């Protein structure tokens, strides 16, 4: 097991390098000049160059990459070109909102989608099935920001149940936290409910055809036991896989949701950084997100072993 984890982490190093290099080059090729962004409207060519110089953007690419990766290895992610804030501090500030959003979203998703999927598979071919599928597919078919606006209109503006926007740390009490995080999470969840419900259904359909399910029925067990103890647990692996990739896919949804609900999270930070060509921030963020991606997938793979005793690493 440990050996496996070690191997996986080793294996992920080249991935991270690929990412780092790729991102670095992509950014440097992208037109866009932090200096111009800093200087504002009135700057003259000379003044721009002055700034570029001080930002070290006139160095040759190789030099820039070497210095950057050098810093990385020493755990230093540098400072934002624009605001001069340390990148790690920026990220630190934005981490909590995004994590909260992601986690609450996943909770909502799992609570709804798994039962939906199981039900659909169990009643395969029935109206219930079609209904469940229709709902989930629908959730998959509406752009996140539209869903968001609709929810805001209904729950925040018309019903006034929740505030329109913003984020409060859970440190400030559950309701302040929950009332602000719920709508965005629900909005974001619509995608994953669709995704995971249909995956659950597919996996369950698979498993329900298995002999051991027939055995379980032959033992005279109640359908509930058959479905959840015998079938679902065997269907867990593919579902987990989707949950994993779901997390990875989430970032794009996060970007939009965060700006619709004004949540100061990583997603918005990233878009701002990209639009402002704030290189150190973008690089750090993308490394971070891909790191998260790698780790989540590792965790998922490990969890397989707990779900299915046949899997050993």
């Amino acid at each position, binding site marked *: 097991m440990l050996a496996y984890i070690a191997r996986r982490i080793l294996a992920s190093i080249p991935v991270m390098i690929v990412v780092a290099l790729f991102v670095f080059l992509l950014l440097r090729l992208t037109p866009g000049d932090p200096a111009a962004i800093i200087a504002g409207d009135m700057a003259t060519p000379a003044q721009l160059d002055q700034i570029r110089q001080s930002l070290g953007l006139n160095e040759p690419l190789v030099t820039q990459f070497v210095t950057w990766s050098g810093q990385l290895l020493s755990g230093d992610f540098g400072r934002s070109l624009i605001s001069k804030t340390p990148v790690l501090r920026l990220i630190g500030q934005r981490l909590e909102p995004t994590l909260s959003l992601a986690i609450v979203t996943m909770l909502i998703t799992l609570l709804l989608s798994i039962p939906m999927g199981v039900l659909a598979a169990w009643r395969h071919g029935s109206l219930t099935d079609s209904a469940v599928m229709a709902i989930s597919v629908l959730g998959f*078919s509406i752009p996140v920001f539209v869903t968001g606006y609709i929810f805001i209109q209904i729950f925040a503006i018309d019903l006034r149940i929740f505030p329109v926007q913003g984020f409060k740390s859970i440190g400030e009490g559950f309701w302040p936290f929950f009332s602000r995080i719920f709508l965005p999470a629900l909005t974001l969840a619509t995608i994953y409910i669709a995704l995971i419900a249909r995956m659950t259904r597919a996996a369950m359909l698979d498993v329900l055809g298995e002999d051991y399910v027939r055995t379980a029925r032959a033992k005279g067990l109640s359908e509930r036991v058959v479905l959840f103890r015998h079938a679902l647990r065997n269907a867990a692996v593919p579902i987990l896989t989707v949950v994993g990739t779901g997390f990875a896919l989430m970032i794009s949804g996060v970007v939009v949701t965060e700006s619709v609900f004004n949540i100061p999270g990583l997603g918005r930070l990233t878009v701002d950084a990209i639009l402002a060509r704030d290189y150190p921030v973008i690089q750090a963020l993308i490394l971070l997100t891909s790191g998260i*991606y790698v780790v989540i997938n590792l965790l998922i793979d490990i969890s397989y072993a707990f779900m299915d005793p046949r899997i050993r690493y």
Partner: protein
Amino acid sequence: MADKATLASAEPVIRRRFLPQIAVSRLRFAPTLAAICLALIVVAAVFAPLIAPYDPIAMNPMERLAPASWAHPFGTDPYGRDVFSRTLYGAQISLIVGLGAAFVAVLVGLPLGLLAGFFRWIDAVLMRIMDGLMAIPSILLAIAIVSLAGSSLWTVLVAITIPEIPRVVRLVRSVVLSAREEPYVEAAIAVGSSLFKIMWRHLTPNTIAPLIVQGTYVCASAILTEAILSFLGAGIGTETPSWGNIMSEGRLYFQLKPGLVFWPGLFLSLCILSINILGDTARDVMDPRLGKGRAG
């Protein structure tokens, strides 16, 4: 012999043979509806120049944000352009983006996947790169690429497609890995078929079913991504109306003139809904297992 033919084994068949029938009979209603809906959208797209009452980019600032009327069924946008006409033309772009993305992703992903599935070393290298690509949040990659190459239809298309490719590759690869163990592949080896022939004749066909399913999902998500890109200001320029940028230009007026978002949104959702339903049907008929395809 004849009577032996009737002895075709029934037990294993029970599950296999009957489920698809049911699946089809159940889904017959929904997919038909979806197909019709999609067909209509395609027609709208193709004949937009004939149907559309106005030039989609001809603006008339004097009657901006006009409410829905006979002149402007969906009203006008902030530039006084006819939203109905724009929505029709938007269908063109969105379909191009969707189908284009699906097509290109498959076109590129299939061969890569085949190779990866067959040669260990290619697999090792290629998959690292693919993991790398997958690890980068697609939307960010897209934004970066768009601002890199300027936001034309084609760059957006590329930007949307690239992140999809790894998923296709993985899918194809997994199919190949399982299919190459099939006795009939071994049989082909035994009769001295070349690697290419084996890939092309015996392995590729296996990937088609999952690819169709995957393709529909790519198509759907591509159309959505285009909308999101527009939302984030990295979409196709306003002179090429797409459902995405119509909505993002209208979203400011969401509470006052919901139509600006509603109509293109409706078209977009119907379109994706139909595609997804067809995809699901394809999957249910072909093999429920393929649901995994989406996740790649």
